[in-house]
């Protein structure tokens, strides 16, 4: 037991988890915004927008997240010199948020499109019939109903994002999976305890998200 508690004093376990929560928080907000824009593009009547939206989704959804994060750090920063923060370490944090956002926006877009499919066609036709243009009918009629129908799949995307935030280790961000490696390197005698800490930590973070989205999706579902 002393060994177990010494792991917490020897390594900044809580700090590492906090970094993952921050990565998840910012990437979730940005991905929701970008993903909504993409979803609107994909259902819009303009062919070039639809094409651009589906190209983005096809390209990004089929690229491994590690490749995207490594590209952000070694490509954007390493080769092109793009910095998102004047602080050296913070720069990697934001580059990783960028990578996570780009990747998960594609999944948010698809989750929202599944929500759009729950909206009866009659709703869109009625919106156009009373004189709303596409932008107004999307904003006032379709998207509000689509969001309510897409709560559960969006929750799944959020859960995936939470766990995928560990890929930021490849982008030089000091978070849990990097710390996991450090701890195994230094304390091989406590390997099972170390795995237990991280598994339990993620369960603690992810289970509430699942419960919240399940109850939200029930409460917000449109009765038809």
């Amino acid at each position: 037991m002393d060994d177990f508690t010494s792991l917490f004093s020897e390594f900044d376990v809580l700090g590492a988890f906090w970094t993952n929560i921050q990565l998840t928080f910012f990437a979730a907000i940005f991905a929701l915004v970008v993903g909504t824009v993409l979803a609107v593009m994909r259902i819009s009547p303009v062919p070039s927008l639809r094409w651009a939206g589906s190209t983005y989704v096809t390209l990004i959804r089929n690229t491994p997240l590690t490749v995207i994060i490594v590209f952000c750090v070694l490509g954007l920063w390493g080769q092109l010199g793009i910095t998102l923060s004047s602080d050296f370490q913070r720069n990697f944090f934001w580059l990783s948020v960028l990578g996570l956002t780009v990747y998960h926006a594609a999944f948010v877009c698809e989750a929202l499109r599944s929500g759009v499919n729950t909206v009866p066609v009659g709703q869109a036709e009625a919106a156009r019939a009373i004189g709303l243009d596409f932008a107004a009918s999307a904003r006032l009629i379709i998207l509000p109903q689509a969001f309510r129908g897409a709560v559960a799949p969006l929750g799944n995307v959020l859960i995936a994002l939470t766990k995928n935030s560990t890929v930021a280790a490849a982008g030089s961000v000091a978070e849990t999976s990097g710390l996991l490696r450090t701890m195994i390197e230094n304390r091989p005698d406590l390997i099972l305890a170390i795995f237990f800490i991280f598994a339990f930590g993620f369960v603690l973070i992810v289970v509430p998200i699942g419960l919240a989205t399940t109850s939200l999706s029930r409460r917000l579902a449109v009765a038809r």
Partner: protein
Amino acid sequence: MTRSTHRPRRTAGVAALGLVAALALVACSSDDGDDGATDGGTGGGGGTIRIGIKFDQPGLGFKDGDEYTGFDVDVARYVADKLGYSEDQIEFVESPSAQRETMLQNGQVDMIFATYSITDTRKEVISFAGPYFVAGQDLLVAVDDTSIGGPEDLDGKNLCSVTGSTSAQRIKDEYATGTNLLEQPGYSECVTALTAGTVDAVTTDDIILAGLAAIPANEGKVKVVGNPFSEENYGVGLPKDSDKCQAVTDAINAMLEDGSWQKALDDNVSASGYEPNADLNPPTPAACE
């Protein structure tokens, strides 16, 4: 009627699934089992010996097609030979840093030669023979860089190391608190960043850096500073209380005496002009406890 034809089919499906699962389990367990590898005997005979090495460290432990090269590999071959195993009885297995102790404990490998530093926490779960080499933490810099002569020159510079390694943290804690740290999954990414000019130095043990500097793609572009500031005793990892410890120690002593040790070093890492720390090398293997 349709029901009765459906039911047996479903049962057959379930049975098939169970069979597949059982087969998968058998396949898994035979994978890490001991098909003659761990029969303990030092006499060689019919069995093979499984040796854990790195596959991704040029000059030390490297898999090139189906060839294995490097200093660790040459020492491993020499020791295996002394234990009575011929070349074709050796099976090299990849042993990434994080899995080394587990692989020894589970019997997936019989011994490990993989830049394996002897430490007290590791000794609690496995045994070591050796050291067969004493490395020191050092820096790799661009070949025309004269501004970095040691870790204290790194304030305000960008330094690359591998995620989870202690070496970069040591520099930040003990030498230059103002160092900017880039952590990458592997050393090759670090060397890429170094040759691209994004980082000023790469840090880990000198012999690993020398191996990286010696590969053709990097030759003439990077150099090892040659000012080691730690002491890493590379040992042979063995299962806890292994009966092979004394035989391995004897083999290492023989290798040091007959010149094969120096030859292995020259063949693998000296191309870049690297000289091991002469105060500590060649090392004297410790007695087996």
